[in-house]
């Protein structure tokens, strides 16, 4: 009875076009965001910040980027990690090569460079699609893996090829403590999530989804596939680039190309599929699931083994982690191919009708 929209009549199209048309949703989301900004910093210890929350925020941003491309525009990518790498290394170069470059500006510029690179590697999408396109994006992955290892200019001629950034500062606010890093990432994520939501609910988003659902029909009503696809690549890569820069600057502090390897690309795709393709909320679910699950299993399995008097070795835990992770993916895809976001909305649907079944 609590979660009902009865009596909420909309008197204008503007009210109907809101991000969360149902009042309860609006309040719940506002409360969660407020809690994330104000509540969590007081409740959480350093480990949670550094090992779970910060990676979660950054990877959620990256997953959002992948979701815009894969979930909304229907272009499969297996090279997401490469665009994170481009963002990270570009931001690094802006920061160290231009005196007085503010950190935030460097990160955003990194995003823009990634967007440009994204457009270039999106060009094959105009001609090839589906699995063949996925392979084209793999080419991007391997190329940039190589480029950042081999072209020493990108790494400021660091002999080892590893670069590092420190003394993060935003308008005089020095971002050192985990809590500051957390708030910085959270702020960026909230902003970019809002922008993404706006894009997807306006003309641009409809163009992307039209291309995804039926590209020939989209063309016939005057959507230019080239513009729609490349803009999706650009926006997606921008998000990935910013996320990559954050991953390098804020989370790792010092990194090498392996931080953005093909494993990362797969991981991001997993997040989108498990979380829910074509759903902003799904990107968050997916990122949370993938970040937390291995850590959870890692701690939970030995404990579980201990309960039944079984000592599980480190390797055993890790193997079990592989198996459970794989099994969960398979299970999810069989039970709900549209991801956690769909489960969530089905649940809401039920709640809306509760306690009356119809």
């Amino acid at each position: 009875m609590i979660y009902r929209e009865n009596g909420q009549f909309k008197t204008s199209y503007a009210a109907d076009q809101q991000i969360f048309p149902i009042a309860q949703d609006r309040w719940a989301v506002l409360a969660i965001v407020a809690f994330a900004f104000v509540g969590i910093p007081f409740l959480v210890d350093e480990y949670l910040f550094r090992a779970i929350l910060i990676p979660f925020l950054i990877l959620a941003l990256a997953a959002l980027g992948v979701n815009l491309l894969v979930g909304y525009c229907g272009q499969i990518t297996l090279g997401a990690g490469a665009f994170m790498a481009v963002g990270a290394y570009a931001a690094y170069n802006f920061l160290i090569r231009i005196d007085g470059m503010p950190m935030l500006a460097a990160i955003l510029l990194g995003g823009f460079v990634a967007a440009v690179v994204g457009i270039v590697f999106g060009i094959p999408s105009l001609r090839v699609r589906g699995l063949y396109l996925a392979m084209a994006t793999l080419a991007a992955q391997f190329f940039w893996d190589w480029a950042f290892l081999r072209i020493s200019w990108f790494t400021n001629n660091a002999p080892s090829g590893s670069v590092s950034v420190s003394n993060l500062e935003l308008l005089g606010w020095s971002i050192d403590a985990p809590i500051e890093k957390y708030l910085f990432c959270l702020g960026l994520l909230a902003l970019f999530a809002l922008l993404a939501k706006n894009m997807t609910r306006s003309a641009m988003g409809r163009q992307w989804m039209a291309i995804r659902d039926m590209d020939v029909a989209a063309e016939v009503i005057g959507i230019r596939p080239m513009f729609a696809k490349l803009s999706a690549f650009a926006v997606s890569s921008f998000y990935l680039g910013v996320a990559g820069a954050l991953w390098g600057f804020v989370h790792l502090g010092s990194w090498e190309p392996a931080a953005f390897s093909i494993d990362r690309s797969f991981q991001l795709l997993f997040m989108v599929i498990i979380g829910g393709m074509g759903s902003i909320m799904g990107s968050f679910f997916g990122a949370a699931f993938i970040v937390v699950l291995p850590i959870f299993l890692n701690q939970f399995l030995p404990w579980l083994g201990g309960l039944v008097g079984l000592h599980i070795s480190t390797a055993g835990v890790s193997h079990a982690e592989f198996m459970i992770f794989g099994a969960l993916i398979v299970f999810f895809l069989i039970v709900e191919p549209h991801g956690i976001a769909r489960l969530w909305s089905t649940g809401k649907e039920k709640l809306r009708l509760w306690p009356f079944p119809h």
Partner: protein
Amino acid sequence: MREIGDVILDLRGISLSFGGVKALTDISFDVREHEVRAIIGPNGAGKSSMLNVINGVYRPQQGEVILRGDHFKRMDPYRAAKAGIARTFQSLALFKGMSVIDNIMTGRNLKMKANLFQQAVWWGMAAREELAHRAKVEEIIDFLEIQHIRKTPVGRLPYGLQKRVDLGRALAMEPQILLLDEPMAGMNVEEKQDMSRFILDVNDQFGTTIVLIEHDMGVVMDLSDRVVVLDYGRKIGDGSPDEVRTNPEVIKAYLGASH
């Protein structure tokens, strides 16, 4: 009221083939402003290919399309859309993952001018545009009597309603020429009546020129002003419904096809 005007669309000597297979051979016919023009013919006659040539999905090897006096060797879908040609599809080509409103809103795409950044911040022009076009889309929804399903993802709708949404999406473009590819295929009698009414209303109220492919002869003869008959990619008849009905070659093709 509507009054049939000059030739608005003229097709001259169109030939189209896929690999070695000839789909259309040297076909010419014209379409006048405000009229309802039907293309009929047995299965595989090349009717859909004809529509695809008109709005540039297929590129003919020979011939040209003349639209309001502009000659096009090859049309492309974007230019066709800009020039005011809209169409519906035989096998449904709706955007399945999107709601009815969003599907019809895509039809307003060409008329929306806000750029990506304005859309991302949902401010000024972008927000105003969304509102204005939403109002327009609601008009179409009212016209097609599909208010109750406006928020439903089209993938979940029954076939007949999907056909209506398809029409709605085309209408949202405010087209001058509307190409309808078997708008009534697979419908029951009642649905067919509804659809016929919508088509005539569109033609009547907005003066939209309509090019129509249909199998149901009764419907075709009732609705259309002039009819083109295709068989195996060649034109075998052209004229008023009555003329076509008595054309011996047409009769032969249809009898042959039914045997």
